[in-house]
């Protein structure tokens, strides 16, 4: 299994790793039994992603895609961020070994889950006003 230099670089020096104290949304996907869990925290400001952080249990590809997806969405409007596909994440990393492609799905899914969480919290807050 050969990883691209970019995957290895993100794996070695992951960006935006950690938790956000008071996140606006949190998305968690994957399953420890399968060896991959990804948790994404977002802070939203004016419908833009003001901050994003991740925690990942998984292989190098899982860690690198987590790191990459946070870089790709940082500062982006939510709608644009939602358009980021698994493919795009993999491409930004100069590709992934075929057997690891599912990791890029996880990253994109975690992002979507975090935004969904933000929106549902927001609409709940709006409803309770």
């Amino acid at each position, binding site marked *: *299994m050969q*990883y691209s230099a970019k995957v*290895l670089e993100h*794996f*070695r020096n*992951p960006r935006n*790793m*950690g*938790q956000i104290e008071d996140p606006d949304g949190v998305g*968690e996907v994957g399953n*420890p*039994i*399968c*060896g*991959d*869990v*990804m*948790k994404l925290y977002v802070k939203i400001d004016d419908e833009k992603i003001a901050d994003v952080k991740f*925690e*990942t*249990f*998984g*292989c*190098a590809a*899982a*860690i690198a895609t987590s790191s990459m997806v946070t870089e790709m969405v940082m500062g982006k409007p939510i709608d644009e961020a939602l358009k980021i596909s698994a493919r795009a994440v993999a491409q930004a990393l100069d590709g992934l070994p075929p*057997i690891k492609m599912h990791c890029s799905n996880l990253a994109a899914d975690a992002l979507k889950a975090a935004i969904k969480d933000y929106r549902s919290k927001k609409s709940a807050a709006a409803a309770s006003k």
Partner: protein
Amino acid sequence: MRRVYMDNNATTPIHPEVMEVLKESLDLYGNASSHHSFGTEAREKVEEARASVARLIGAQPEEIVFNSGGSEGNNYVVKGVTCEGRACSISSRGNHIITSSIEHPSVLNVAKCVESLGVEVTYLPVDQYGLIDPDGVEKAVKDNTCLISIMFGNNEVGTIEPIEEIAEIAKRHDILFHTDAVQAVGKIPVDVNKLGVDFLTLSGHKIYGPKGVGALYVRKGRKICPLIEGGHQEMSLRAGTENTLGIIGLGKAAEVAAKEMPGERKRLTALRDGLYEGLAARVEETRLNGHPTQRLPGTANIGFKYVEGESILLRLDMEGIAVSTGSACTSDSLEPSHVLLAMGIPPEEAHGSMRFSLGRENTDEDVDYVLEKLPPIVQDLRQMSPLYAKK
């Protein structure tokens, strides 16, 4: 950068003495089955090697069949005894085989293959240490059992199975007994007669010999269908022009192993225990997978909770340290190790287990280096892990 190779169960470096004979033998090119002097020269060396391999496991030279390695040996026995799933003269007893759930894929996958072709297969469970219970073997025996195949030392966790007791059961029921001793031969004493096995698989590249060469021990008088047919090589049990160079290398490796085993066995056991104890002292929530004592000298399979093995592997690789997450031939798969699962280890912990397999080139300094590099890596990865945070 310092390089520390602790993946000797995957494969070993060629021993300097073996390298020497390989270099010397590069121009010994005759076909060992040819009847001219070029052939005779090759034949002599092949027979010397056969005698060395036989000596290492207490066999007669004519009971050693050279082949291309452990996978071939294992396939040969499982397919050859069941005649590829058919009741033939060899398996006249029937078509039921007994094996275990922690065998190497070259036994397990072939068992599944012949199963799909009509052979009945019992996969015995193991306990938390990876041990097979001889009573379980006895209970699994049926009237139509023709083969019991149980590995000697497990490649992932190093647990050593009670082969002698199991062979005794096989003998009592008049069932052929095979052991995959690829990881045991050369590391601990193996004597085919003391053990009472009918077939035994060994492989060159696990004992500092070349890759792509191995041997199958076939007890005198035991019948088996060849896997590779054709010419009359290897007493018509394995066709193909003799791999002279590989065989010479294997012979030398066997000779050296016999000589170095007692010392290495002690040394590696101490080294490996030092490694585990050092890690356990430095990293919280580690677990030793495999039997605490009944274990191959150099093998320590260690679980690190909350992190995933491949990440550790790659981070260690960046520090020049080579280990593995399981057997090299299955590590392309995303499944956690079938051996660890069979031992009842939860899948998420199986994912975080690393195999350190030490060999003759490893030193105290190597262990110290790993003890220095590994703990911060685990710490780093745990910091990143949502499972650890949740605690």
